């Protein structure tokens, strides 16, 4: 609408200038004729077309941008998903026999998985904490939990992981996973836990 009015004003102004400059008999007041109406319509049509074209370009560009963002989001989500997955693998605990700190054969595979993760993510640093059931002596269990964590660390180091990427800690029997004085609870509590200390924001699969 604005453009139309501007256009009309322009037309009038041009006519006025033309009128002022003419020294000849004043031309007859321009009368709308079929030609000028057609020209005017054509002009307006072309403007509308131009506007539509620009609109569609803008829409297309917006569409492209949206798609790009979507793709980015999708890939971020998948990266986050992978990171989550790797973290879950990393967090998988291993368990121990009563008053023992040796790695059980079944748990070696779990530790091998962690070796792969540590190799694929060189910036990753972890802490292994050893835990015990409540049957042993309270203070001795700190040493036993430490030995369990150290034993898991030694396994990873033997597979070529740098020792300074792995911290160890022990909580003895102070942080049980399962409550109760049953064999099942005790077995669950004799464990080593693995947590990320640094470099775990974006992890890749082994």
């Amino acid at each position, binding site marked *: 609408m604005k453009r139309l009015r501007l256009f009309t004003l322009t037309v009038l102004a041009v006519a006025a200038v033309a009128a002022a400059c003419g020294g000849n008999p004043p031309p007859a007041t321009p009368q709308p004729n079929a030609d000028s109406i057609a020209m005017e319509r054509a002009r307006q049509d072309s403007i509308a077309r131009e506007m539509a074209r620009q609109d569609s370009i803008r829409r297309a560009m917006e569409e492209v941008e949206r798609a790009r963002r979507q793709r980015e989001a999708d890939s971020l989500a998948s990266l986050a998903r992978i990171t989550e997955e790797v973290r879950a693998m990393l967090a998988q605990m291993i368990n121990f026999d009563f008053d023992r700190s040796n790695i059980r054969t079944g748990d070696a595979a779990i530790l091998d998985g962690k070796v792969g993760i540590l190799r694929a993510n060189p910036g990753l640093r972890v802490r292994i904490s050893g835990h015990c059931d409540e049957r042993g002596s309270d203070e001795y269990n700190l040493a036993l939990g430490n030995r369990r964590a*150290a034993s898991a660390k030694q396994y990873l180091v033997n597979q070529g992981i740098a020792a300074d990427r792995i911290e160890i800690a022990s909580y003895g029997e102070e942080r049980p996973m399962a409550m109760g004085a049953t064999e099942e609870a005790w077995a669950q509590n004799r464990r080593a836990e693995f947590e990320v200390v640094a470099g775990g924001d974006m992890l890749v699969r082994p």
Partner: protein
Amino acid sequence: MSGRLRGGVAVAVLVASGAAAAAQDTMAVDRGVRIGIVYRPGVRPGFVALRAPVELDSVRTMIARDLDFTDRFEMITLPGGDSVRATGAATPARRGSAPAPAGLNYPLYRALGADFALGLRRAGDTIVAVVHDVAAGAVRRAIAAPIPPLGHPDFRPSVHRLSDQVLQATLGVPGIAATRVLFVRDGRVYLIDQDGADGRLVSASDRQAMSPAWSADGRQFAYMEFWDGRGQLFLHDMASGRRRPLAVTGRSLDFTPAFSPDGRTMAFSRATDEGTDIYTLNVRDDCCLQRLTVGRFSDNLSPAYSPDGRRLAFVSTRSGLPQIYVMGADGTDQELFAPFDYGVTGSSNAPDWSPDGRTVAFHRDVGGTLQVFVVDVRTRTVRQLTSVGRNEDATWAPDSRHLAFVSDRAGYRQLWIIDIETGRIRPLLQQSGARLPAWSPRLPESAIFNPRPGDR
């Protein structure tokens, strides 16, 4: 009288037959090896706490209980009312001692089996405890003690100190009434009087605490706190309630602190990638770490100083399961302390050296549960003290005959006290979850009064 005689004979026979006077868990049913004499009332001197003015009732009750808890007396309750009269003629006072003061009835006390009687009266700001020698029919000693009014924070400590003076006046031995026990519950350090009263929180940190250990002067204690998977050792000053971290600890898992008797050195366990080993540090300057053990493939932990400060009992897994070893305070001459049968004897842990230097208490796995044992330092003979339920983490009283320990004998884990002479056992607490007790030394007056709660 004949009962007491029989008791005396029984002890004499046991001693004569070579069986060392030993205690037995009195809640135990007799089975298997006999591990000591059975608790026999009547062997010990009789003690009667005489009726006192009503306002001294709580003092009298506390002292009577303290004396009972020494396990050195047969506490005698006077029959109520005035209807009871001693039969027979009053025995004349012996060897010219003063006649019995008014209201006293030595013949009655003698008839009831009392050797000592205690009277209490108030004299101005002080309370006078009069110790009577019943056999002699005379006053043995009068002790005047300033006791603040009931409810005053110094009331209970003052009465406990009076109890110890009464024990000194009767049997000539120092008591343990004015002592306290530190323990851990829900990751916090608490303090309680040896009679189970006045329990209070002393460590106010939100971090989980373990292993409180007294300094020999009773003015401070050390303990460990978990800091993000590491173990930080702290010193807590009893008078000010302030604590300071020991800066040379805490970078790894440092635990089980133990003060040397002179207070200058602290031994503790440090767990690293290489395992757990025993170190010492200089307490005053917070420096000068020294490593006493090199375990490599075994763990060494839980150091406990001998009272002369020259040796350390400790736990080592060098032979497989943890067992009790001993070494010089500088780490030399490491050797087995409490003998065990390889492959048969269960894990042994948590040694604590008695203040008289003669005995080391520890606990040992017996058939899947823990029991309190003692090893005689000179003969290296091992003796089992408990047999009911799970019993662990024993800590010596300053009299070297009582031990506080953790037991689940009542269905849940709490603190109990055993007298190893008589085998008598009493609960210290009625709360579940208490563990890792540490019995104080005899506390200096300035240390026992007004301990403040810890600050953060």
